[in-house]
C-alpha cells in the first residue's frame, strides 16, 4: 500500500486504514486481557472455596434452575451469532443488514438480562440472598452456603453489568450505522464492539457450567 491513503476516517498518525484498524483491534484485545485477569480472580476464588466446601457448594448449586440457565446460554449464543453477522454485514457494506442484526443483538441481550432479573428475584423469594434472612435447607453450614451465593451474585452481577455496557455500545453502533457512518473501508467500531460482545459471551460460557452444572449428578 502507498503511504497515507486518504480517507475521511483515517487519523493522521497512521499510514494506512489497515494499520489503523490493526492498532484498534490490538488495543481492544489488550483491554480484554485485563478483563480476563479481572474475572480470573473471581474464578480463582470460586475454585478455592468450592474445593474447601464441596458439599455445601454442590447443594447450593443444585438449587439453581438448570433449564433457565441452559436456555439463557442459548439466548446469549444466539446474540453472538447475530453480532458476528452484523460485523459481516458491515464488512460487505450492507447497511440494512447491519442495522437489522444490531437490533436483533440488542433484543437478545435484553432477553438475557430479563431472564437474569427473574432468576435474581427468585433468589430473594427463596431467601437465598446472603444476609440476615438467608436460609438454605438441608445443611447446617449456612456460612459457606452464603459464600456460594455471594460468589453467584458477584459473578453473575458483574457479567450482567458487562452486558448492560454492551447494550449501550450496541445502541451507539446502531445509531452510527443508521447515520451511515460505516462502510467496507471503515467499520472498526462494529468489529471492536463485536470483540467485546463475544468476550462477555465467553465469560458466561464458563459461568454456566461452574455455577449451575457442577453438582448436578448428585441430585
Amino acid at each position, binding site marked *: 500500500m502507498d503511504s497515507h491513503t486518504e480517507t475521511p476516517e483515517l487519523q493522521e498518525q497512521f499510514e494506512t486504514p489497515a494499520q489503523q484498524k490493526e492498532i484498534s483491534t490490538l488495543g481492544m484485545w489488550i483491554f480484554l486481557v485485563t478483563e480476563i485477569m479481572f474475572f480470573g480472580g473471581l474464578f480463582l476464588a470460586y475454585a478455592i472455596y468450592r474445593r474447601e466446601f464441596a458439599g455445601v457448594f454442590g447443594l447450593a448449586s443444585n438449587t439453581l434452575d438448570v433449564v433457565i440457565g441452559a436456555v439463557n446460554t442459548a439466548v446469549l449464543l444466539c446474540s453472538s451469532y447475530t453480532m458476528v453477522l452484523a460485523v459481516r454485514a458491515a464488512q460487505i457494506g450492507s447497511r440494512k443488514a447491519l442495522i437489522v442484526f444490531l437490533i436483533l443483538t440488542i433484543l437478545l441481550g435484553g432477553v438475557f438480562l430479563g431472564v437474569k432479573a427473574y432468576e435474581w428475584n427468585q433468589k430473594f423469594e427463596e431467601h437465598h440472598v446472603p444476609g440476615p434472612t438467608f436460609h438454605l435447607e438441608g445443611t447446617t453450614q449456612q456460612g459457606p452456603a452464603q459464600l456460594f451465593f455471594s460468589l453467584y451474585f458477584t459473578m453473575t452481577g458483574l457479567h450482567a453489568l458487562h452486558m448492560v455496557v454492551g447494550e449501550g455500545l450496541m445502541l451507539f453502533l446502531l445509531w452510527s450505522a443508521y447515520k451511515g457512518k460505516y462502510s467496507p473501508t471503515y467499520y472498526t467500531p462494529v*468489529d471492536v464492539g463485536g470483540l467485546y460482545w463475544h468476550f462477555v459471551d465467553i465469560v458466561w460460557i464458563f459461568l454456566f457450567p461452574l455455577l449451575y452444572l457442577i453438582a448436578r449428578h448428585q441430585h
Partner: protein
Amino acid sequence: MKEHVDSIQTYTLVFLSLLFLTAATTVVATIDLGAFNVVMALFIAVVKMLLVALFFMHLRHSTILTKVVVGGGMLWLAILLVLSLSDFVTRGWLPVPGK
C-alpha cells in the same frame, strides 16, 4: 491487507456446534462420572471458548501480534490459577513441626 470475510455457512455451523455443546454439557452433567464431571464441564467450556474466539472473534485471521497478546493473557491467567491452587491443594500434605 485484504479483510477476510467468512461465509454465513461457516458462522451458522459454528453457532449450531455451540448450541449442541451447550445441550451436551447440560446432559453430561446429570451422569455421575465422579471427578470427571468437572473435567468434562471445563473441557466443553474450553472448546466453546475456542470456537467463539477463533471464528466469531476472527482470531484465526488475526495478526501474529494479536495472537501473542492473547496467548500472553492466557499464560498469565494460567499462572494465577495454577500457582494459587498449587498452594491451596497441597496444604496439609506435610506435617508442620510444633503444630
